[in-house]
């Protein structure tokens, strides 16, 4: 197999040069604790959650899954009086490879959408692997969605217009959530935004080999994340689709999906394959493959031209979906 990787976009390559001391491509199980203490992706947490007073911010503690601890939801509502009835909801699932982060990581992205779309953002805190392996994370995420749908009225929100969204592990968990709520006949989101989602525990695609040692979150880090979540069963025959959505046999009956990914990252091929399988199942999906993008490029280097294009495509899709 040709192992020559696609080149990084020039601006993104330069940005990577500046952040490389904080973000390295690989991550082993031994390094998880160190990574949690360091700056790392925690720094993707937005500093001002109110966006200069646009949002009212509160933390709700709500029931978790059966026989499990309560979970925390970060709720950001536009402070202004709603003019057009209940608002749509962006239900956000943070990233961090299943092992890192909290419900503030990456929340600036849905907050920016919500500001444009006059929506409520709910960002769920879930238990992290390896201390809490599958199904703890997805069950927490599901419990948060159920509460949000049942209590939408309290938030001035419309339970019939919930969009689920996440990046990286949060994208994988969002895809899993769409499958799980379909199968349990739970709340029915109207769309799923899967940004560079982490979908496949097998870690054997051409892109996962091509990008070894490069960019952000290479195959070593990916193996670490999935092993933390699944233990020895990672890559084996018995992995649940609610852990790794790429394992799902049935992709029918899902809400419309928006997927994006960089061409120069580990997840490229699994994301392209997932979008193709949604179409093959008769579903609705929009796929963007951004040339030269590394994993999470639009979060790490939001000013770059490619990042601006990616963010703009996300918002455009949401506008069409929500119809504002």
């Amino acid at each position: 197999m040709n192992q020559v990787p696609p080149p990084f976009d020039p601006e993104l390559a330069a940005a990577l040069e500046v952040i490389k001391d904080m973000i390295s491509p690989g991550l082993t199980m031994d390094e998880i604790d160190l990574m949690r203490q360091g700056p790392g992706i925690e720094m993707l947490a937005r500093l001002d959650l109110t966006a200069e007073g646009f949002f009212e911010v509160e933390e709700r503690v709500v029931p978790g899954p059966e026989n499990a601890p309560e979970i925390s939801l970060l709720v950001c509502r536009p402070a202004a009086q709603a003019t057009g009835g209940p608002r749509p909801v962006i239900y956000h699932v943070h990233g961090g490879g299943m092992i890192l982060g909290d419900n503030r990581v990456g929340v600036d992205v849905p907050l920016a959408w919500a500001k444009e779309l006059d929506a409520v953002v709910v960002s769920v805190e879930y238990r992290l692997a390896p201390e809490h392996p599958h199904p703890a994370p997805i069950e927490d995420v599901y419990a948060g969605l159920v509460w949000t749908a049942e209590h939408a009225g309290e938030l001035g929100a419309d339970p019939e217009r919930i969009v689920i969204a996440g990046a990286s592990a949060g994208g994988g968990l969002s895809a899993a959530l769409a499958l799980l709520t379909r199968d349990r006949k739970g709340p029915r989101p109207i769309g799923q935004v899967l940004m560079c989602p982490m979908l496949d525990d097998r870690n054997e695609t051409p892109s996962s080999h091509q990008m070894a040692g490069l960019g952000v979150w290479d195959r070593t880090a990916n193996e670490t994340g999935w092993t933390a979540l699944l233990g020895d069963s990672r890559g084996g025959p018995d992995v649940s689709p609610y852990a790794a959505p790429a394992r799902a046999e049935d992709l029918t009956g899902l809400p419309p999906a928006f997927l994006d990914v960089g061409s120069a990252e580990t997840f490229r091929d699994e994301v392209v394959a997932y979008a193709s399988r949604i179409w093959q199942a008769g579903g609705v999906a929009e796929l963007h493959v951004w040339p030269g993008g590394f994993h999470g490029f639009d979060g790490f280097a939001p000013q770059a031209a490619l990042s601006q294009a990616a963010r703009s495509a996300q918002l455009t899709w949401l506008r069409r979906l929500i119809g504002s």
Partner: protein
Amino acid sequence: MSHHVRMKELAGRLTALDPDAGAAVQVISYFDRLADTRAGLEALVRGAAVLAGCPARLVDAGRRVRVRVEPDGTRRDAEGPPDADWPCAALEPGGVPALWLERTGSEPSVVDAVILERAAGAIRLVLDRTRGRAPSSPADDPALVEALLDVTTPEPARLHAARGLGIDTADPAVRVRALAPSDGRPRVLPAGAELPAGRLGVGPAVAVLDLPGSLAAARTALRFTAEGTAQDPGPRVVHADELGGIALLADLVAPGAEPPPDVRAVEAAAAAVPGMLATLHAVAATASQRAAAAEINVHHSTLQDRLTQAEHLLGWPLRTPQGRLRLQLALTMRHLARP
């Protein structure tokens, strides 16, 4: 994001660098990497804006380049002139400022200086690669120049042509001039710019919409020029606004018409004696006979002999103020009468 946010709070995301955090090394690697990957102008200006945490702007009028980027990475070009207080850099050593960081009210930091230096260097490489060296004039597009200089072109179209040539039409203080070269098309130059080489009539510095008048004056001035050789002595460059009342002669002597008698007398003297034309020009163009002798590199007594001979051939004195004026007029009309 604020310029003052500390680096450790930003780790993991590319944004404004803390000036105290020893960020110069990161600036250098950022621009080196952009240069390695042959990034374009906008990416370089964006890099300056993002790393500095304030808008950055690139203006190279000579190459018609104008790029302005906000610190959040969005392109937002501006019309107004740069502020004299902004930190800035030239693209060439000793050149005019071309890249600005739009930061006021604080002393430029070391990081600002490094950003400007590295970005300007990378920008120069891109411009040399993609647009060639800066031309000596901003005005080298014949169609635009023609539209700009034609009084029958509607004013909005002339202003549009001016902007196409890199002239800032928003600033009413901007002055430009037309040039009429002896060989080639008319040109347009900023008022302060260095003149090109060659034989040239230079129009007065005017507002953009008055350029057709500047060109008419430049063309008149061109008629007063000469090759500057022994056969055709005289100035190679004539400025219209230095002619004064002498310019009126241009209307009296039509090109190619039968020359006035004094001009015919000069021609006859020039034909009769080698070096006579240079002698007459030296006497007309210098302040004293000693200076005239030095100009044509002869001894003072030799000059006296030649003047006596010339007065005989021409039929009028050359050592009186009136005679010198008559000679100056004859030499000038000789240029004007050329076809």
